């Protein structure tokens, strides 16, 4: 009887022995990746979108306090975003990729285009009419919100990096080799304009049909006051040869210029440019996209998910996410 007892105890203990197995690892917590951002667009003081590397689309509904990642369904680079209201928006990029949302970005769908090119910039005048530019002088145009895209040739064999319209008829597209192409008929015909330089242009902004700004590599800034008949170089006084990636104006007087390790602002229509104050060192990062919300917010995005906000039209910037 006693022996049976001890044997039972032993067997009970032996049963425990196989429990000697290492505990499994804890499930990983996901860390959001800070991808490069190239473009930002706000349709109100609260609602904005930013797009960038690996198909990333960030969205805020509270003026940039929080940003949520939207599912773009692509791993391709998205280089430009444009929303016409809180629901309707487009993003373009490598692939070619044209994404459209009609519900503020909850769902994004790919729009078809026959052109197999890298699309770099998008500009919509309203929910129907918009333009996209890209490699090989490509200009795509839609009048039905992107359901169909038709080809418009800029008449150049260069990568176009930006397109901007002052109204439904007057627009400019800029890119490699000092290319400026302009339209006065809503894109039906594009006419090259003489920039006088061969620099690569990364960005253009049309304040109105006459007043247009262009910027690009080697810290170049061009300005026209006559709709592009003549372009003049503007000295920003930066004193170094860096690329400027974006120029944007809130109105005729107030504008922002950003690039490799530098942000400048003007409040006198571009007569003088001054370095912005930032709460984060920017010497070795690049800033690529600038956007203004309708009333007072200014936004800037760049390397490794950097998002900055300004409440004084670019005079001072605070890192929102960096």
């Amino acid at each position, binding site marked *: 009887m006693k022996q049976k007892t001890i044997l039972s105890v*032993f067997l009970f203990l032996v049963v425990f022995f196989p429990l000697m197995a290492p505990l499994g690892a804890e499930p990983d917590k996901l860390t959001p990746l800070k991808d490069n951002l190239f473009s930002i667009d706000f349709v109100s003081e609260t609602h904005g979108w930013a797009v960038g590397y690996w198909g990333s689309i960030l969205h805020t509904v509270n003026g940039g306090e929080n940003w949520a990642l939207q599912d773009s369904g692509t791993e391709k680079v998205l*280089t430009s975003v444009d929303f016409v209201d809180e629901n309707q928006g487009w993003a373009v990029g490598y692939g070619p990729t044209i994404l459209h949302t009609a519900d503020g970005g909850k769902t994004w769908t790919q729009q078809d285009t026959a052109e197999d090119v890298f699309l770099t910039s998008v500009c919509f005048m309203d929910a129907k009419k918009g333009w996209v530019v890209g490699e090989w002088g490509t200009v795509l145009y839609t009048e039905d919100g992107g359901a169909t895209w038709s080809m418009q040739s800029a008449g150049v064999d260069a990568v176009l990096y930006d397109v901007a319209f002052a109204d439904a008829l007057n627009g400019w597209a800029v890119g490699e080799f000092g290319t400026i192409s302009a339209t006065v008929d809503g894109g039906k015909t594009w006419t090259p304009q003489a920039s006088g330089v061969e620099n690569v242009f990364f960005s253009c902004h049309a304040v109105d049909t006459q007043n247009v700004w262009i910027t690009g*590599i080697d810290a170049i800034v061009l300005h026209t006051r006559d709709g592009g008949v003549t372009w003049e170089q503007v000295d920003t006084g930066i004193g170094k040869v860096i690329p400027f990636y974006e120029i944007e104006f809130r109105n005729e007087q107030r504008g922002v210029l950003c690039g490799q390790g530098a942000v400048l602002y003007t409040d006198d229509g571009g007569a003088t440019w001054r370095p912005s104050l930032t709460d984060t060192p920017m010497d070795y990062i690049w800033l690529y996209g600038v956007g203004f919300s309708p009333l007072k917010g200014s936004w800037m995005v760049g390397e490794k998910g950097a998002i900055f906000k300004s409440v004084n039209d670019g005079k001072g910037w605070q890192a929102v996410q960096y």
Partner: protein
Amino acid sequence: MTPEAPVWAKAAVRFRWPLLFIIGVVLTGLFLYGVSIMSVNVVLEDMFPFGHPFVKLHKEFGSQFGGASTTLIEVKATKGDIFNNAFLQKVKGITDAIVFHDDAYSLLTASISERKMKYMRGYSGGRVEMDGIMWPKIPDTEKEFKFMKENLYTNPLYNGVLVSEDGTAALIIGEFKEGIDYKNLFNFFMGLKEKYEDETTSLHMIGKPVLLGWIYSYWPEMMVIFAVSIGIMMALLLLFFRIWQGMVIPILTALVSSVWGLGILGFVGVNLSPLLFVLPFLVGARALGQSVQMAQRYYEELDVLQGNRVDAASRAMGALFIPGFSAVLTDMAGFSVCYLAKILLMQQLAISLTIWMLAIFVLTGIFTPLLCCVFPSPKGKFMKSVHEEHEVTGKHHLVDGINLWLTRLAIGKKGNWGVIATFTILYVFSVIQTTRVPVGDPTAGSPILWPDSVYNGDYAEINRTFKKAGADNYMVFFRGIEEFASKDPKVLKTFERLDRYMRAHMADVYGGDSCLYNVVRKLNKEMHDGNPIWEFVPDEEALCTSMLFLFQSKSVPGDLDRYADPRFYNTNTLMFFKDHTEETIDRIRASMTNFFDTNPKVLDGLGEYLLAGGVIGMETAVNEEIAMTHTKVNAYVLTAVFTMCALAYRSLLAGFILIVPLLLATLLTFVYMSFAQIGMTINTLPVSAVGVGVGVNFGLYIFSRMKEEMKINEGNWTQSLMITARTASKGVVYTALPMILPCMAWYGMSSLKFQAQMGLLLGVLLTFNMLAALILHPAVIYRLKPKFIYKPNK
């Protein structure tokens, strides 16, 4: 006492002088030669499981991409930053010294001063400028430093990897060959420190070659510790026996056994790592313990036989044959099952230590009693105390007093159940706790050294300073089936996707990667006027090829060797991690599985991804092998012990009773390991295995004595147990303490944390085994009164 000695024992004693000559002179001389050819080098490859797919990959790609012997050297500016000519000259000097070192894979060396570390800048019109960051000229003017900073801080391949984000340190990554003289390499590293360190510069070095060098540097200290341990043993033996023979005979036996054992290691060709020095010491101590038991038994027989040394020696031999042989068999079982590990070093150890244990049986079973026989007999007080061993009342020696008290407690009315219950609770607790024993290194840095060691300080410093590099690396390979396969965008994008996956899932320990796709991304950007939107791997294979062609046209042969072979068949990604703890390794394993569940491992027409290499790859292979072997070793040893004990006493119950405390002792060892954060590694496995075997020796000794005493005392359990407490239990204490105390002493003396912890571990294990023999066995025997010990005549 014992019945007549067996014939073989009588014959051995009769021919004692020739036998002593053969054992002490001829065989010992032969083994001394073995000692002289023994290698104490570390051969890393011997420590890897040879059949493991990761190890096979390491063999295939190791010389191409390095990985297992990576060394990181941080050159730190203690004042200001690194951007001054004098400091950069130092970085170049150290880099060059490594590049030109005979044991380095020169082309795999990475440093900002290397020619292959280029900056790329795109200018208007598609012009791309590409040149060395610090080559051919080391920057010397403010303008040049500014240019250099821009090039470093805007390139993800350098920023946070080869130069710290705060600009105060540069990192040099070296890859070294295996099977080299690590002592020489360590001297080389120390030479660099001596030459380049001053009030503005400090050097911090980590990696396997550095670690091994540090371990070797403690060699003189190890010798001192072993000498102190032997001194403690001698002092204890003198204290116990109070006669010089009691000290000299066991020590002599242990020394001869050590010569034999080390000689066997020499003949087998084991490369004895300094970390495994604990093992010979432990086995030597086992010889000492067995020898003490034999000597004690000899003196008991001498007392009974009134000074007849010849008969006393042969009777002692005969009496301890079964317990001695059984104990040795147990140890042999413990060691031999280490052969199951498919690791060359473990297999070599399994063979040599098994033979060594057999040698110990010969030495303690024959050599010790013969020495006792030829040494002068002790007289006076000592023999009087031996004579009084059968008296269980009256005034006693301290050890006897404690043993008798413990036995009384164990067989008392309440005490008996109390003891059994206590041990049962302890057992259940240990089983639960045992599940937490980590496999592999449980802490960041090296668990072999103390946290405040120079090495671990450097480890923390490098991890702190270089956010995107890490001391421990993991490699995933791609083996292409045709030329240029590794340049294909599909191949490169999968590597990038893997990097993103790791950054998302393991951001706390993942630093970053070094892979061909990083180069392609950077090239794509710079070829498009430096425009960041182009910084991606393009879809077109032709574009990737042309960009890499451009890079190569500006390079010298070998510049891309870190990323791919010259014909772009194979490529890899080198991922940096902050540690190689078990948890990190488990997470990496899970992440890789999950990643390749959703991303094809085989790319049609291109090739396949292969896991894994690098320090962590090899660590994973070893951990998997150890984890598998660890369970097998325990299962087989316990089965062997059970079978052997059951056969020795022809009783299943005997097997159970002897195995339970053993199981408990083993589990408690694991409990200690989990508390002390000692992982099960290639270094601890043999210690753990031999620990399983040590305990049974004490139990066998108690049981054999009980069997004898029950006959003499005609079935009086209490009287027999009390006499056993004064005789066999004393033998257990005398055997155990000279092993326990020196082991414990290591904890306070060793600069090697591993050695200190192993010492404490063994001390805990042996203490528990001793207590089980002194308390649990008497309690169980008294409770069960097993028939294999005494069967009353009806």
